[in-house]
C-alpha cells in the first residue's frame, strides 16, 4: 500500500464506499418493490373477495325477501284479500338461488386461482381455507334448495298451513347457510390480516437491512479516512520538521525517502532543494568573501577617484579657456572665409569676362587666318604673274639671241662686201651690242624674277606658317576657353564650398558656444562629481561594512 499513489488510494476508498452505497440503494429498491407487490395483492384480491362475499350476502337477502313475499302473497290469496294477486312465482327465488350458486362458484374459482399464484405460503393456506368454506356454503345452499322448493309446492297447492309449518326447517337451513357464509367472511378477513402482517414484516426486514448496510458503509469510510490520513500526514509532518530546520539554517538535513509515491518524490525534491540551497550557501559565502575584498578595493578606488575628480575639474577649466580661444579663432575663420568667398565670386565674374575675351580672340584668330589665306592667294597669284613675266622675258631673250645672230650674219655679209660693207659692218656691230645689252637686261630681269619668286615662296611659306600659328593660337584660345571654364567651375565650386564653410563656421560657432556651455555644465558636474565622490567614498565604507555583515550572516549556515 505504501507504494500506491495517493490518487489511486483515494479512488479505491471512494470506489468502495460508492459500491456499498449503490448496493444499499438497490437492496432498498428491491424490498420496496416486494412491499408494493404485496400491497397491490392485498388491495386487489382481498377487496375483490370481500366484494364477492358482500354480493353473496345481498343475494341471500334477496332470496329471503322473495320467500317472504311469496308467503305473504299466498296468505293474501287464501283470505281473498287480494283477488288480482297472481300465483306464487317460484321463479324469483330460483333465479336468486342460481345467481348465488354462480357467485359462489366464481369466488371458489378466484380462491383456487389465487392459492396457486399466492406470494407466500401462509397466504396460500388462507386461500385454501377460503376455498373450503365457500365449498361448504355451496353445499349448505344445495341443502336449502329442496326445502324451499317443497314450501313453494305447498303454497301453490294452497296448503298454506303446511307451508307455514315448513318455515322452521327452512330457517334452520338458512341459518346453516349464513353460518357458512360467516365462516367464509372470517376466512377472507384472516387472509387480509395475514397480508397486513406480512407487509409489516417485510418493511421491518427492509429497514433492518438498510440500517446494517448504512453502518457498514460509514465504518468503511471512517477506516479509509484514517488510513489515508496516516499515509499522508505522517510524511508531511516529517517534511515540515525538515523544512523548519532548513529554515533555521541547518542545511545538513536529509529525508532519504524510498517511497515511490508523490510524497516520495516530494521528499527527494526536498533533498534536492536542500542540496541546492547548500551549494547556493557555499557559493554565497565565497561570493561574500569576494565581495568583501571587492568593496575594500572599491573603497580604495573611490578615494583615488576623489583625487582624480579634483584634477578633472581643473582640466575642465583649462578646456573651457581653450574653447574660448577656439571660438575666437572660429570667428576669424568665418570672416576670412567670407572674404575669400567674396573674392572668389569676383574671380568668377572676371573669368566670365575672360571667357568672352578668349572667345573674341578665337574669332579674331579666325578672321586673321582668313586674311592670311587671302594674302597667300594673292601672293600665289603674284607668282603666276611673275611666271608670265618670265615667259615674256624668255621671249625677249629669244629675240635678243635672234638679233645677235642676225647681227653676226650681217657682219659676215658686211665683211663679204668688203670696202662697201664697212659702214654696214658698223651697223651690224651696233646691233650686236644692243642684242648683247638686251640679253644682259633679260639676265638681270631673270635674276630679279628669281629673287621675287624666292621672296614669294618665302612669303607663302611664312603665310602658311602664320596660318598654322593662327590655328595653333585658336586651339590655344579654345584650350584657354576650356581652362577658364573649368577654372570658373572650380571657382564656383570654391564659392559654394566657401559659402558652406561660412555656413558651417556659423554652425560651428553655435556648436562651440554649446560646447562652451557644455563645458560650463561639465565644470558644475565636476564639482558635483567631487561631492558625489565623497559620498561614494562614504557609501563604499558602508558597503564594506555591509559585506562584512553579509559574511558574518553567511557563517550562520551549517553546510
Amino acid at each position, binding site marked *: 500500500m505504501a507504494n500506491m499513489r495517493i490518487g489511486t488510494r483515494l479512488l479505491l476508498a471512494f470506489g468502495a464506499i460508492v459500491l456499498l452505497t449503490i448496493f444499499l440503494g438497490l437492496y432498498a429498491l428491491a424490498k420496496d418493490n416486494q412491499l408494493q407487490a404485496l400491497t397491490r395483492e392485498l388491495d386487489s384480491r382481498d377487496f375483490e373477495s370481500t366484494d364477492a362475499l358482500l354480493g353473496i350476502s345481498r343475494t341471500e337477502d334477496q332470496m329471503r325477501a322473495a320467500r317472504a313475499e311469496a308467503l305473504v302473497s299466498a296468505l293474501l290469496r287464501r283470505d281473498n284479500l287480494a283477488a288480482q294477486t297472481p300465483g306464487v312465482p317460484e321463479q324469483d327465488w330460483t333465479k336468486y338461488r342460481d345467481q348465488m350458486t354462480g357467485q359462489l362458484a366464481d369466488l371458489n374459482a378466484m380462491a383456487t386461482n389465487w392459492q396457486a399464484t399466492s406470494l407466500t405460503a401462509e397466504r396460500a393456506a388462507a386461500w385454501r381455507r377460503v376455498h373450503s368454506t365457500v365449498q361448504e356454503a355451496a353445499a349448505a345452499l344445495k341443502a336449502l334448495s329442496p326445502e324451499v322448493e317443497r314450501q313453494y309446492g305447498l303454497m301453490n297447492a294452497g296448503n298454506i298451513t303446511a307451508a307455514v309449518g315448513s318455515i322452521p326447517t327452512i330457517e334452520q337451513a338458512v341459518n346453516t347457510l349464513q353460518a357458512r357464509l360467516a365462516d367464509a367472511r372470517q376466512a377472507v378477513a384472516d387472509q387480509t390480516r395475514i397480508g397486513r402482517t406480512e407487509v409489516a414484516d417485510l418493511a421491518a426486514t427492509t429497514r433492518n437491512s438498510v440500517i446494517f448496510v448504512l453502518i457498514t458503509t460509514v465504518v468503511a469510510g471512517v477506516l479509509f479516512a484514517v488510513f489515508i490520513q496516516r499515509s499522508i500526514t505522517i510524511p508531511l509532518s516529517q517534511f515540515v520538521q525538515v523544512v523548519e530546520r532548513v529554515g533555521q539554517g541547518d542545511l545538513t538535513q536529509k529525508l532519504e525517502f524510498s517511497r515511490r509515491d508523490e510524497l516520495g518524490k516530494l521528499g527527494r525534491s526536498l533533498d534536492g532543494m536542500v542540496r541546492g540551497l547548500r551549494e547556493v550557501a557555499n557559493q554565497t559565502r565565497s561570493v561574500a568573501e569576494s565581495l568583501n575584498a571587492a568593496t575594500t578595493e572599491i573603497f580604495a578606488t573611490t578615494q583615488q577617484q576623489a583625487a582624480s575628480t579634483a584634477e578633472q575639474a581643473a582640466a575642465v577649466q583649462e578646456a573651457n579657456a581653450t574653447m574660448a580661444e577656439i571660438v575666437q579663432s572660429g570667428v576669424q575663420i568665418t570672416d576670412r572665409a567670407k572674404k575669400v568667398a567674396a573674392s572668389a565670386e569676383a574671380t568668377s565674374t572676371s573669368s566670365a569676362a575672360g571667357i568672352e575675351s578668349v572667345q573674341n580672340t578665337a574669332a579674331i584668330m579666325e578672321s586673321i587666318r582668313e586674311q592670311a589665306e587671302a594674302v597667300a592667294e594673292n601672293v600665289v597669284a603674284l607668282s603666276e604673274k611673275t611666271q608670265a613675266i618670265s615667259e615674256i622675258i624668255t621671249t625677249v631673250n629669244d629675240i635678243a639671241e635672234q638679233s645677235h645672230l642676225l647681227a*653676226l*650674219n650681217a*657682219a*659676215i655679209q658686211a*665683211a663679204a662686201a668688203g670696202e662697201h660693207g664697212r659702214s654696214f*659692218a658698223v651697223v651690224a656691230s651696233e646691233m650686236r651690242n644692243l642684242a648683247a645689252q638686251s640679253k644682259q637686261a633679260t639676265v638681270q630681269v631673270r635674276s630679279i624674277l628669281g629673287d621675287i619668286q624666292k621672296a614669294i615662296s618665302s612669303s607663302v611659306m611664312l603665310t602658311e606658317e602664320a596660318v598654322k600659328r593662327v590655328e595653333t593660337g585658336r586651339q590655344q584660345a579654345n584650350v584657354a576657353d576650356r581652362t577658364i571654364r573649368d577654372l570658373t567651375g572650380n571657382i564656383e565650386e570654391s564659392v559654394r564650398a566657401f559659402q558652406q564653410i561660412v555656413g558651417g563656421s556659423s554652425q560651428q560657432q553655435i556648436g562651440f558656444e554649446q560646447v562652451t556651455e557644455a563645458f560650463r555644465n561639465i565644470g558644475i558636474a565636476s564639482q558635483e562629481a567631487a561631492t558625489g565622490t565623497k559620498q561614494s567614498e562614504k557609501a563604499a565604507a558602508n558597503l564594506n561594512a555591509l559585506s562584512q555583515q553579509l559574511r558574518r550572516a553567511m557563517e550562520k549556515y551549517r553546510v
Partner: protein
Amino acid sequence: MKEQRRIDWNAARARLAEAQQVLESIDSDSAVRKRTFRARAESLARSDKTAGPEMDGDSIMIFRLARERYALPLASVSEVVTGVEPVPVPGAPARVAGVIQLRGEIKPVFSLAHALGLSESRDSDAATVLLLRHGEGEVGLHVGPVEGVRTVAAGARQAAPEMARHAAWMTADLVLVLNVDALLDEDG
C-alpha cells in the same frame, strides 16, 4: 621671346606707292628715259673705245669650244646658223657630225672637236653651225657658241705654235685662228 620685328606700314605703303608710280611713269617719265638713254650712250662709247671693230686688218669670228676660244677668218664664214641640230648620218666618217637642212639644201656638218682631237663634249645648249665657203659650195662646222666678230690689226698677228697644226696664226690674247682648208682637207 622672339624679337619683335614690327613692320612700318606707313613706310611700306609709301614704298609701294613709289614703286607703282615708277612702274606707271616708266614710259612717260622723261627722267627715267633720259637715264636709260644715257646709260646706253655711255655703254656705246665704252665699246667704241675698247672693242670697236678695226677698220684695217683681218676680221675674225671668235667662238667657243670646250671652254677654249677659237676663231675663224670672217671671210671664210658665209652664215651662222643656230637652233639646228645636225642629224647623224649612218656610215659617215667620224669627223662628220651629220647633216643639216638649210633653205631646202642638205649641207654636211663636220665636227670641229673631232678635227681638233678633243673629246666629244657637246654644248647642245649653244650648239652652233658655221657655214664655211669651201670650194664651190658650203660645208658646216659644228662649234660652240659664237662670241662675236673682231678685227685684228695686221701687226697684232702672232705666229701660231708649231703643235697647232690647224692654226693659221694667233691673236694677242692667245685665240687660235684656224685654217679652214687645213681643217676640211686634212683627210680628204
